[in-house]
């Protein structure tokens, strides 16, 4: 409980401690969630996306060393940093992104995988180079699970989902696995200072000479009136423009009305475990600074979850269209991740480098998990109420493989998932991928029976994954 021991409770200008018992605070907005545990703590999802796949071929460096059954295994070197949470994790191999081979897909390789991994769909039509001969690709025609969950349960928190990452410069379908409605890729924020401002900016309390409560009330009232005017403008403009533009304005208005609903009431008291983080001083946002950036961004996400600013936290790092820029120099590497992932210097040498990268990533993840474990919540810790999905857009990098990727699910999510196991579908269940995504949707309270194109999750979620 290192974090809690040195926490400073959020204080307003008058020195008043803001905060009610955690239960009250979390239930103030939106009422009790379908996905809350018996003690009332809400369920959370973290997506930890790392691009370029893993070293899994010709030798599988990811695969645990298997003993007598699914619960008897040792973690590989690559996964070893996750040893402390091995019993709370599901290591799943052979999760083919079958939907990415759909006849309607418009891309190959990295963009094809990135548009499938969280959607159960494929890279649709668009204007971006996707790699398939004579045609151009776009984002997935079906949204990703983070968006779907945010849409379902996001009204309960300030942000339906948050997206932070390291060096997310790429704007193409290869670099943006998170997809909103209407084939819009969701941007990832790579600047921890700007991220802080947007997530915790609201926590800035009163103006001089004003009580915290009065300040918050005034701000909320102002926003209500200002946004009423903007909504009036949206309606007025919508009546003048063509059908396509009107649709965009309608979406804008719908989304803005939702924001208005949240910001026109004073913010709820923060949960007890919520500690307003310190604004980062990092200005170098290049990949070379990842050892500083990754923890900074993950810390913000941990506290955004602890403060119940959102229940869906997405992190992404190492992107296939980073154009040769992602060199893990702090590991002694001189070549970029994508180049190494293609084993251009040979299997033995480059697999070693890829394991080093994955170990470093797993270490970042474990540090983040420890942060979640340090936040006390009803029924245990924040980690106990969280599920983390670690995934990539492809399986092994050098063949752009989408037939045998892996899903690492960490955290039982209040006992929802049956963890402590290594499973290998080995291609036997061609729709395992979509059916796993469906489990995550259901866990987060989305009562869906399919994800992406229903044909890839026909028959419902995979059996024997949850405790139900």
């Amino acid at each position: 409980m290192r974090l809690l021991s040195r926490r400073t409770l959020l204080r307003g200008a008058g020195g008043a401690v803001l905060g009610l018992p955690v239960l009250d605070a979390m239930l103030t907005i939106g009422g009790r969630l379908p996905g809350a545990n018996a003690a009332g703590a809400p369920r959370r999802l973290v997506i930890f996306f790392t691009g370029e796949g893993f070293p899994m071929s010709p030798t599988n460096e990811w695969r645990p060393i298997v003993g007598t059954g699914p619960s008897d295994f040792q973690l590989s070197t690559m996964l070893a940093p996750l040893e402390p949470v091995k019993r709370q994790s599901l290591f799943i191999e052979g999760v083919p992104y079958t939907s990415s081979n759909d006849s309607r897909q418009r891309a190959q390789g990295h963009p094809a995988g990135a548009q499938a991994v969280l959607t159960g769909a494929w890279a649709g039509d668009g204007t971006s180079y996707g790699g398939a001969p004579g045609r151009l690709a776009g984002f997935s025609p079906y949204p990703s699970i983070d968006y779907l969950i945010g849409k379902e349960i996001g009204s309960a928190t300030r942000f339906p989902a948050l997206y932070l990452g390291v060096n997310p410069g790429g704007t193409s379908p290869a670099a943006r696995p998170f997809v909103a409605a209407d084939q819009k890729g969701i941007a990832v924020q790579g600047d921890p200072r700007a991220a802080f401002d947007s997530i915790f900016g609201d926590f800035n309390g009163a103006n001089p000479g004003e009580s915290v409560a009065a300040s918050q009330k005034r701000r909320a009232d102002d926003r209500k009136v200002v946004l009423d005017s903007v909504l009036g403008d949206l309606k007025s403009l919508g009546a003048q423009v063509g059908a396509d533009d009107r649709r965009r304005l309608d979406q804008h208005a719908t989304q803005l009305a939702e924001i208005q609903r949240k910001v026109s009431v004073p913010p709820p008291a923060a949960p007890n475990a919520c500690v307003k983080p310190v604004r980062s001083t990092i200005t170098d946002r290049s990949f070379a600074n990842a050892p500083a950036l990754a923890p900074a961004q993950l810390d913000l996400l941990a506290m955004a979850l602890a403060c119940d600013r959102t229940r869906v936290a997405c992190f992404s790092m190492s992107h296939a269209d980073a154009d040769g820029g992602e060199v893990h120099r702090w590991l002694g590497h001189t070549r970029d991740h994508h180049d190494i992932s293609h084993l251009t210097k040979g299997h033995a040498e480059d697999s070693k480098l890829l394991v080093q990268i994955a170990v470093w990533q797993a270490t970042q993840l474990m540090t983040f998990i420890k942060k979640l474990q340090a936040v006390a919540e009803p029924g245990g810790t924040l980690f106990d109420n969280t599920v983390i999905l670690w995934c990539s857009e492809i399986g092994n990098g050098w063949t752009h493989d989408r037939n045998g990727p892996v899903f690492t699910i960490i955290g039982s999510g209040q006992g929802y998932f049956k963890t402590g196991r290594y499973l290998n579908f080995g291609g036997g269940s061609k729709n395992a991928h979509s059916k796993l995504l469906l489990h995550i949707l259901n866990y987060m309270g989305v009562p869906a029976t399919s994800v992406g194109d229903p044909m890839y999750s026909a028959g419902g979620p995979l059996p024997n994954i949850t405790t139900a």
Partner: protein
Amino acid sequence: MKYATLLSVLVFAGCSGDIVGDGGGDDDGNVPGPGDEPPPVDPTSPPLGTIDRSDEGPVGPAPMRRLNRREYNNTVRDLLNDTSRPADGWPAESALTGFDTDVSGQGSTAQELEQFLAAAELVARNANQATVLGCDPATGDACALSFIDRFAARAYRRPATADQKMRLKTVFDFGRRTDFASGVRLVMEAVLQSPFFLYRYELGEKPTAGAVRVALTPHEMASRLSYFLNGTMPDDPLRAVADSGELRTLATMEAQARRLLAKPDARTILAAFHHQWLELDRLEGLTKDPKLFPAYGPRMAASLEAGTRAFVQNLYLERGDGTVDELLTAPYAYLDATTASIYGVTSTSTTVKKTTLTQPRAGILTDGAVMAALAGATETSPIARGMFVRGHLLCQPIAAPPNDVPPLLPNPNLTTRERLSMHRANPACAGCHNLLDPIGFGFENYDPIGRWRTTENGKPVDASGILGGTSKSDGPFSGVVELAGRLAKAPEARRCLSESWMTFALGRQIGENDTRTVTGLGDWLDTGGKLREFLVGMARSNAFRYRPLLATK
């Protein structure tokens, strides 16, 4: 390869998108705008009136466009004198066409609208009301109404309607309960989040019977011109000719375009276009092996791009006589003390200066920033360089490799060229790589940071290549200077430059109905058109001045 367009794909797929209009001309003119001195037009540049050839056919779509990060920063700077660049912290746009102007990537996610909310509150709070207000608060409502009228008209880039002003007055009255300044601040917050501010929408003039397109209104045209050539809201002289309706004439439009091109903001547009077109965004965070290239770092990268910027700004803006030929073949570079070694000269200058080079160089093709961007950390990338020429200079994008590509194992005894030649031996790869590698190999004299070299791994560099896929310029070449000579003679290259600029200018993918403008501009360049007038030509083209009839259903 970051972007490609519909037109390109049609070309690549073997469809012909070429439709050449018939003869004719438009009324041309060269009348200076009020209160400024546009630079003289090069008399040898052919007249612009030939470009669209009195074409009255359909034009491409005109989707509503939202201010991007660059435009947002510039617009609040000009509207409120706010130089804080509040949009810098926003994540990059989904620029599927390769340009940040692309409308197809613009959604309305919670994240994006939250950014507008936060920025509006910040900008409104920091605004200096004494300078913005323009009237005495003691006059009460009269001052409030006059402020709303003027501020909304500037922010919305057209006169504010009674309806709009009424809503803003309601906001003012609410804030006024605290004090006058709060009322003004809330009005600013409402304006800065209004769709009339955030979006550029174009309804066009009233259609005439039987027309398939309508001209943009003067205010819509003023915004298009200003955001295209200056990346910001219309300035006072431009707003004046929009208000008066003078902007309806081609003469005024051209004069205004030339005036805007003389403003400092035009230089930032040149920088923005080339940063994206030349894929210099790759340089951000790009590292090179420090053992091999100890001199390379962020400072070097910044100086290299400063040189690229100075080169294109001089060619397009400072001189009236820059040509596509020179863009592709210039034997000089802009360099400073940091980048002199890249170009094989010495310099003590702290700013980039035009310097004639002795080693073989060819404009943007051998530009240090471009060469560094299109290379890996340890070795060159003939594929990336070939893709760049094929995709960005000829607008003929090539497919990505299929799944399950076996790696090319390293061999210290081979040059990069020898190693890559192996996958052209594989028939599955040869189809595409035959279109890429023989171009990319021509660049092998330029190492991963753009320095001239004649050997690699102890072996002499072979920079011979073959250009294919063009109508008039196919054939063998040795080195980039010869390749540049072939490209400079290729009509495809000039049409592709037109297409790339139009993609940037229109904020959308170029389609079938834009072909006449794109080929018209390319043909005009073929007849000796100069680059500054080329930008004016785009601004007065049909694709730029008209929109299709409004489809309301």
